Structures are given as C-alpha cells and as structure tokens.
C-alpha cells in the first residue's frame, strides 16, 4: 500500500463510522420490543410433571449444585413411590440442564419464561405446586425437540437487516 502512512487509514476509518450514522441501529428496545428467545431456552425455572414423575431422584443426584431436594415415601397399596416434597432452589441453580437430560421418565422440563426476577430470596425456592405447567409457564424445548417445534421461532440478528452494504 503506497499511501499507507499519509492519513489514508484515518480517512478510511472516518468513512466507516459516518456510514454507520445512516444505518439502522442494531439494538432493540427491550420492554417494548420483545424478541423471541431460543426454543431450547434454559431459563431459571423448572417445570415438573406430576403424573410422570416416579420419584426416582435421578435429577437430584445429577444436579452438580445440589439444588434439587426430593423426599418420597412408599405407597404400599399401589406399589410405587409418592413424592412428598419436590423443591428446587433456583437461587442455586446454574441452569446447566443436566437434571432434564438425566430424567428417565421425561417428567422435568425447563420453562420458557425468562422474567423470573424476585424480590425475596425465599421466593426463589420453587416447590411442587408452583412448578406445574401453566399457560404462563410454557415448557421449553430443551432436550425435547417435539416440544420445541410448537414454540415460536427464535429472532435472530442474522435475519435483521441493519445495513445496506
């Protein structure tokens, strides 16, 4: 490059920045403008299926943080375990998803909700009944592709045309 040291580099850089002035910005305005999150979203909440859970406790054993607490008792009449206590401290949860992968009976899912901030630490502890699937707490498709296909498609920045080049 012959003109390398004569201020050409500075001039080129200036053209790049001024061109960005007339492009659409990349950012989005969060509370008004909501983008779809990933279909396999690993959020901070778990969804538990009461019917499918057999109380085997594999999730609690797999959890690297020890955030899942499960207490079962034996139901002699029907010859199965009854889950007395199923409690997840999402304050300790690191959203690794190993519990969901390890569940042999497909009874545990991530929720697709992402606005899970709480004011008190005690509110972070979820137990049996607030872990069920509701219309507000949809099931995320993490590890369950058939559930993922029902969720809205993720918004990608690749799709958003921000500039004419």
């Amino acid at each position, binding site marked *: *490059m012959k003109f*390398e*040291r004569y*201020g*050409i*580099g*500075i001039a*080129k*850089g200036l*053209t*790049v*920045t001024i061109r960005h002035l007339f492009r659409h910005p*990349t950012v989005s305005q969060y509370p008004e403008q909501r983008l779809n*999150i*990933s*279909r*396999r*979203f*690993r959020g901070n909440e778990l969804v538990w299926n009461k019917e499918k859970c057999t109380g085997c406790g*594999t999730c609690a054993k*797999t959890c*690297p943080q020890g955030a899942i607490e499960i207490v079962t008792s034996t139901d002699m009449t029907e010859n199965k375990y009854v889950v007395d206590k199923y409690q997840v401290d999402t304050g300790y949860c*690191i*959203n*690794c*998803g*190993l519990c969901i*992968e*390890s569940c042999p009976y497909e009874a545990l899912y*991530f929720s697709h909700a992402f606005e899970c901030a709480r004011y008190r630490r005690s509110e972070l502890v979820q137990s049996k009944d607030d872990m069920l699937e509701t219309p507000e707490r949809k099931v*995320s498709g*993490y*590890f369950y*592709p058939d559930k*993922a296909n029902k969720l809205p*498609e*993720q918004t*990608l*920045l*690749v*799709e958003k045309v921000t500039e004419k*080049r």
Partner: protein
Amino acid sequence: MAVRTEPFVLNMGPVHPSTHGVFRMRVTLDGEVVVDIEPIFGYLHRGIEKLAEQRTYTGIIPLTDRLDYISSMSNNFAYCLAVEKLAGIKVPERAEYIRVIIAELQRVAALLIAVGAFLNDCGAFFTPFLYMFRERERIVDLFEMVSGQRLTYNYMRVGGVSQDLPDEFMPALRKFMNMMPRFMAEYDRLLVQNEILIARAKGVGILTGEQAINCSASGPVLRASGVKWDIRKADPYSIYDRFDFAIPTQTTGDCYDRYRQRVEETRQSLHIIRQAMEQIPSGPVRAELPQLIRPPAGEAYAHIEAPKGELGFYLVSDNSIAPYRCHIRPPSLINLTALRDMVRGWKIADLIIIFGSIDITVGEIDR
C-alpha cells in the same frame, strides 16, 4: 537522555477499566515509564480444580463453562476430549462435525472480543468494541439456538453433544457465513491502516520467538512471534486433520502483529466452518454411555487450540465416578509469564495495550 525521578508504585486494578476483570498489576513507575511490574491474581479464585474432585465427570462440564467464560464451548470441548481419551470413548461422526463447527464459531466470537477489547485499550472509544459485539451477537444467537443459553453453553457432553442441531440452525449459519466476510472487510477499513494505531502498536511490546517458546506462550501470542505451532495441525484432535486450512503467522511479535494474527485466524476459522458445513453427515450425536462414567484408573492429557492458546485438561482417574485430580492448563495464565519482560521500559499507555494484546480472561487465570 531521560530524566530519572523517584519511582513510585501504582496499583492498577483490581478494579480498573482495562484489566479485563478483577486483575491487579503492581506497577513501579518512573514518571510514565514502567520500571517493574508484578501481576497479582486470585481475586476470582473459585477452586474449580478442587471442586472438580467432588463432582461426577458429567457434572464438571458446567464448571468448565466458567473457566474462560467468553469461549465456553472450547472449554467444554477440551474437557470432553480429555474424558474420552481417559475412558476410550468413540464419538459419533456427526457429533465430531458439530463440535468442530461450534468450536470454530466460538473461536471467531472470542477473537472478535479479544480484538475489540484490544482496540478499546488503544483508546478507540468503544466503536470497534461495539462493532465486534454486534458480530459476536450473531454467533451467540446461533449458540442460543443450539444450547439455550448465551454465555455458559454447557453444550458438549462426554461422547458427543447434548442434542442435535435444530433444523433452523444450518440456514442461519449459512446467512451468517455470507455476512461475515463483508463485515471483516469493513472492519479492516476501519482501523487496520490507521496511522495512529500503527504508531501505537507497531514495534511495541516485542516478544521474540525464542522467548515465546521459553515462556510456554501459546495460541495467537506464540504465532504472532513467528512460531508456526498450532495444535490443530501439530497434534490434530477430533477431526481437524480432514480440513484444509493454513496457519497464519506474523514476523515480529509486537502488539500490532498479535492484533493482525487474531484477525487472520478468524478468516481461517471461517474457512474451516465452510468446509465442515459441506461435509457434515447425518446420524447420532451422542455415544451410548451410562449415566455415570467410570473411566479406568490412569491419566490422560488432552489439549486443544482454544482461542487464547493451548487449553489442556490433565485428568487422573482412580476408577471412581469423579476424577482423582483434574488439572487445567490455562492459556491466559501462562501467556502472562512474558508480560514483565514485554512491558519493562515502555510507558503506561503501552503497558495497557501490551496487556490487552495478550488477551486474558481472569476466570481462566484464577480458576
């Protein structure tokens, strides 16, 4: 004819805008000139090596995410390779390709941050940094699609990857691959020829090849000094021997070379991804393994070419479900060995950019 004044000690960090995390440098200054420097670590020490001794082999993978948190996928990759080497596990073909694509995307993302942060240290007021983050965002979107998270991906598993790629991944990746070269060209126009950058970074903080080897430097820092050593070529792991790519090297080993080296490596990574996209077969993505892996007693060391250098895991097994010892070879920490020799005699402003050009992540240094 420099005027000698009384040296004084300046504590840069642990909270300083350009120490890339909680890192402290005890700098002895003579006016503006750095006389001596002592890096002080440990502010982010979480004892990951000790924690790993208490966890199952699968349970360590989330921990590795938190080592070098801007290239989590590479860490997962290195760890899984080490366990597979230890237990002799064969990975399905498709999983190997997915791993390579993901790892190279991660390299692009991490190198973009490294370059952006370096230029930010040079004083380009956040512009290159934000442009880089915009491009990284596109990659992180793809990672979110496959793994569901944006920073701690926890995607790779021993014996494969956790899930197959979703159907919409490949079209999105193709779009990204079409976009990236144009961005790289525009980015080159922004600052590569910039006279101020050249004046600041050329000839500053020279690390010679011999010194780099002696200091066990690795990755872009080593190659910018002119040493052609890339573990992907020298000791091909996974399926890197199937791809055709070059190892770019620079000559002098100054800050500008390290910056150029990272940009060139990004191009090679894109080249690898393009080949892998064409060759990827279909099939299973995870080997059939028991819930708890019990590798035979022994030891294994697997290393990969992470964005920052040679990232290795040295595992010692005693045939239980948790490793007896898990040592991590952190590229960031070992690359810092040469810092003192590189900065002595330069000014504070140079100290910042030399430090920035080494590209460290404190999560990996302190572990």
